[in-house]
């Protein structure tokens, strides 16, 4: 989600691919949210709570920072210049 110069990116699409093309519905069922919420998280339209973020990471067996990355706007600008 991009909000006030803060961006949280995620690797959920890639991780689903590496887990046998896991469907959004299957991930949603395991995490305890709706498929549309998984879709919104994946598309950067919604930043999940810490609890849901941990649950998603747990489903993939990865540490949180491998699933979600925090990128501040100033860092993005500095990297691009």
């Amino acid at each position: 989600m991009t909000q006030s110069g803060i961006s949280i990116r995620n690797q959920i699409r890639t991780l689903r691919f590496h887990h046998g093309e896991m469907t959004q519905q299957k991930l949603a069922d395991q995490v305890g949210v709706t498929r549309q919420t998984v879709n919104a998280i994946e598309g950067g339209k919604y930043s999940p709570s810490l609890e849901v973020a941990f649950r998603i990471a747990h489903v993939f067996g990865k540490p949180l920072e491998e699933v979600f990355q925090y990128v501040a706007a100033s860092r993005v600008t500095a990297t691009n210049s």
Partner: protein
Amino acid sequence: MDMSFEEKSVWIQLFSLVVGLGGYLVVAGLMLSNGVSALPPFVPVFAVAVVLIVAVNIAGHVVAAITNRSDEADERDRLIGCRAESGSSWILGVGVIGAILSLILSVGGVWVAHLLLISLFGSEVTKDVLQIAYYRRGI
């Protein structure tokens, strides 16, 4: 459109409000412009509007439940609900203050009642529109 059960529910509520309460306000406006100044003639019209709202809501939710999974509301639905509520409740507040001021200024009861209804309608419609915007554009 890919919608969760909760989002469909918001669309149904918005539709029922616009049809029911919106329809009532149009009829009430015509009655007021024709000089009806007592509240009792408005009661049956309002009763029809309430029945219409309930009927459309029930029918809409039954269809929505049949046509897709009726997942429980999750944290995103709750957050969207809260944000929309806080972005729309001020309209009802303004209406209530306006109604109190109208009473102080001895405005007729029929006008005060409709000021309250309009503010309730505005508040609920704004809430639904905000919810739909948050679902579509992200939060």
